[in-house]
């Protein structure tokens, strides 16, 4: 820790040379907020069950496409198979090999990527807006005839194993995996890294079978945003995807276990110059009437730069660079997490300050000034998140996937505006109290255990 010294240096030289202190200028107030423009969506549900939602946004001559497929499953080997599926779904179709498929996409000024989490498989694409029909044609081809060529599957299997090895060497990944095991032990939500032995045993035939079972339109959601007309977008989609049919096989959605409470888990990482701290617990879903208050409580605690935790352990103490807390929403549950990577030698004081701030916000009300700050931040950043084609497409896909819509987002301003200090205090007490949370610390156990054990119960897991 660096010594601190409260001596103030001779202001800045610009002022020093002026030889006088300039009179204080007032910070300008806010002018009248612009009226919120209503976003109009066009929607169609195809015969196959595929739901398509479109928003016209002609800001740049591009178009964004998001196709979301529910993918949560309790089946054994699901994570390894779905991970490898997402790495190989674009490596060949009935008409194109991997190379010609990639060429076709580039010609459209396009990109297509595949993302996977425990809840969903997400195909995200963008292209020049004039190329939307061609882009949707590529979607249709992949969805109906991805071929999972044996040699491509073999190559990607090897790469996936190497990438898992690389990921497991990252302290942030180790910490998130350890936290996941505490928050959802044994559940798909608890991990994002498949066991290497399972990946090794995954075959092309298994991927084709998984594709046939789950890459189906009946529960799928297609979002299109960009510089095209609604009729053109919806008609193009209907024409292109007419041949994609069928229903998903039963996915046996696994029940979510409770938190694995217990002492702070130290995952030993000998020689680590920092400790990766993670705290986590349950939270309210966005549809809950208490959610807006919890959203504001999280912001006041550590969900933005001007929050108690960040101002304390970064701007006052200098223990860490990027502490942040957040609320995340999955299909089965919502969660609160707080993360900070702190210098090894200040691990115990950083935990002390964290417990202090969690304890303070869960036992004492925040101030009216804090409430005004976090409320304004929450409302303002909401419009920023939907100010681009790509941001709007992703936000809309996420909302619709959770059973919400843009109307929910519009009305959320009013819900945030109505939150009271008392409501924030109530949800903070319920969800942010230190004893409601699980905690992990990835770091050098020899150097951090003793001091930490003076503050909380600990348990140490070997490297």
């Amino acid at each position, binding site marked *: 820790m660096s010594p601190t010294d409260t*001596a103030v240096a001779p202001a800045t030289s*610009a002022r020093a040379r002026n030889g006088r202190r300039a009179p204080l200028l007032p910070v300008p107030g806010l002018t009248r907020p612009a009226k919120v423009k209503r976003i109009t969506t066009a929607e169609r549900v195809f015969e196959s069950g595929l739901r398509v939602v479109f928003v016209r946004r002609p800001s740049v001559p591009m178009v964004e496409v998001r196709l979301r497929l529910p993918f949560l499953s309790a089946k054994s080997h699901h994570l390894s198979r779905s991970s490898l599926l997402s790495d190989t779904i674009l490596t060949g179709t009935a008409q194109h090999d991997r190379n010609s498929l990639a060429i076709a996409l580039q010609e459209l000024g396009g990109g297509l990527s595949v993302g996977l989490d425990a809840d969903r498989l997400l195909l995200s694409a963008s292209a020049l807006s004039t190329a939307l029909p061609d882009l949707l044609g590529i979607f249709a081809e992949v969805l109906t005839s991805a071929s999972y060529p044996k040699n491509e599957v073999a190559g990607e299997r090897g790469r996936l194993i190497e990438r898992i090895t*690389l990921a497991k*060497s990252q302290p942030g990944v180790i910490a998130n995996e350890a936290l996941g095991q505490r928050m959802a032990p044994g559940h798909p939500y608890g991990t994002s890294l498949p066991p290497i032995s399972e990946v090794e045993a995954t075959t092309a035939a298994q991927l084709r079978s998984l594709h046939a079972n789950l890459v189906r339109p009946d529960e799928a959601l297609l979002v299109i945003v960009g510089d095209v007309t609604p009729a053109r977008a919806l008609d193009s989609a209907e024409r292109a995807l007419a041949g994609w049919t069928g229903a998903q096989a039963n996915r046996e959605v696994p029940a979510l276990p409770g938190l694995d409470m217990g002492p702070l888990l130290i995952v030993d990482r000998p020689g680590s110059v920092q400790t990766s701290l993670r705290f986590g617990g349950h939270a309210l879903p966005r549809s809950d009437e208490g959610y807006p208050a919890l959203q504001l409580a999280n912001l006041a605690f550590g969900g933005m730069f*001007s929050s108690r935790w960040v101002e304390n352990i970064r701007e006052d*103490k200098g223990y860490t660079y990027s502490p942040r807390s957040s609320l995340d929403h999955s299909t089965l549950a919502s969660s609160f997490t707080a993360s900070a990577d702190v210098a090894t030698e200040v691990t115990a004081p950083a935990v002390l300050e964290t417990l202090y701030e969690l304890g303070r916000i869960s036992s004492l009300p925040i101030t009216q000034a804090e409430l005004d700050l976090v409320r304004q931040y929450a409302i303002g950043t909401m419009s920023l998140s939907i100010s681009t084609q790509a941001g709007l497409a992703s936000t809309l896909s996420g909302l619709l996937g959770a059973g919400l819509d843009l109307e929910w987002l519009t009305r959320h301003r009013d819900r945030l505006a109505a939150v009271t200090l008392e409501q924030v205090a109530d949800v903070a007490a319920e969800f942010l109290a230190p004893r409601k949370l699980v905690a992990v610390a990835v770091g050098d156990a020899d150097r951090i255990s003793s001091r930490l054990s003076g503050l909380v119960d600990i348990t140490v897991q070997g490297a």
Partner: protein
Amino acid sequence: MSASRGAAALRAPSFELVHHTLRNGLRVVVAPDRSAPVVGVAVLYDVGFRSEPLGRTGFAHLFEHLMFQGSANLEKLEHFRYVQASGGMFNGSTHLDYTNYFEVLPSNAFERGLFLEADRMRSPRITEENLDNQISVVKEEIRVNVLNRPYGGFPWLVLPPVLFDTFPNAHNGYGGFEDLQNATAEDASAFFDSYYAPANAVLGVAGDVDADQAIELIEQHFGGIRRRKKPPRQNFGEPMLSAERRETVTDALAPMPAVALGYRVPNPGDDLHSYLANVLLAEILSDGDASRLQRSLVQSKRLVTDISAYLGTFGDPLEERDPTRLNITAHYSDQSATEKVLSAVDAELDRLATSGTEPGELDRVRTKFAATIFRELDQVLNRSLEFAKFEMLFGRASLILGLPTLLAEITDDDIRLAAARLVPASRAVVELIPGASA
């Protein structure tokens, strides 16, 4: 499905750009767009870590942190609070040749954003206490991004000292802990005096503003800042390499080997055409599954887990003056394969140099590149940053809108020539030896 577009340039979205220069020398670019009620405000200063003094590595970045610690009319923490209480977001970042500070705000906070930027351009509040606090924060930033993670700083911190010889180009831009610890408030005041003059800055504004009103407000808030001398721009040029340079670094945390190749490239300021050929060449080499290195080294030979080719330090090909570089980095599982990886890269470059591109290859790569620019410009904050950056580095904010046209002028011969210059004798190679067991 094929949609070949020929060599015609794609038309970029049109943005009205209004230019203005204040009497104190501050250059302003305003790009009004009333479609969404948000505004981006970006101030770029023409100083990056290439200009920091000997014995003060990391100082440009540390100073960037200090610019958030209060100013003439604002106490510590107030800058952040005013932005966030307006419903906005902020950040800053330090690059090789410039440092940026920015906010994206609901447009009803536009004037407030201008005030916040003007106040710290007038006089940041540099105290020993804030300095000590931010030295600690920056040390944690370096630990989390470099020292505590495998491949931290690879290759941006390990390649320059091999590829370059002079302190400005070769040194560690994050800084050594000792240099950071030795930094004083006097250093900070001197750095501010030298480099943070209004005449050494560009203000970019984009989004929901009226251009005339915006310029009036800008005059009101920035006009009173005293004119100071614009520092002369240093020439950082170094002779091209004449022989290949090799170095190894050991990464105790890494489970697998990696290699980084750095090639010297033409000066983007003098010869933008040749430089842009290198930009497209990097795309031909590694953008997407149809690119040369992906096809050869990843898919066909299965030599590497991943490989990428890009220009500049942080992946933005148009943010550095001369000298800059083309990087190729790869991770792979077998340490003894390094030479095979290098020969496979050389073989692909040689194939391009001798046979040129395939039919359609150059067109689709530039179509994709132009589309990527359009997508970036959709974000109001990016517009304020990009227009200011192009104004600062190329003297022309509108250059970014003209890139599709300039890219359309790149020929197959240009690509062949660019590839032919990427020979072993013009590169530095840094091999990363893993110290952790996989």
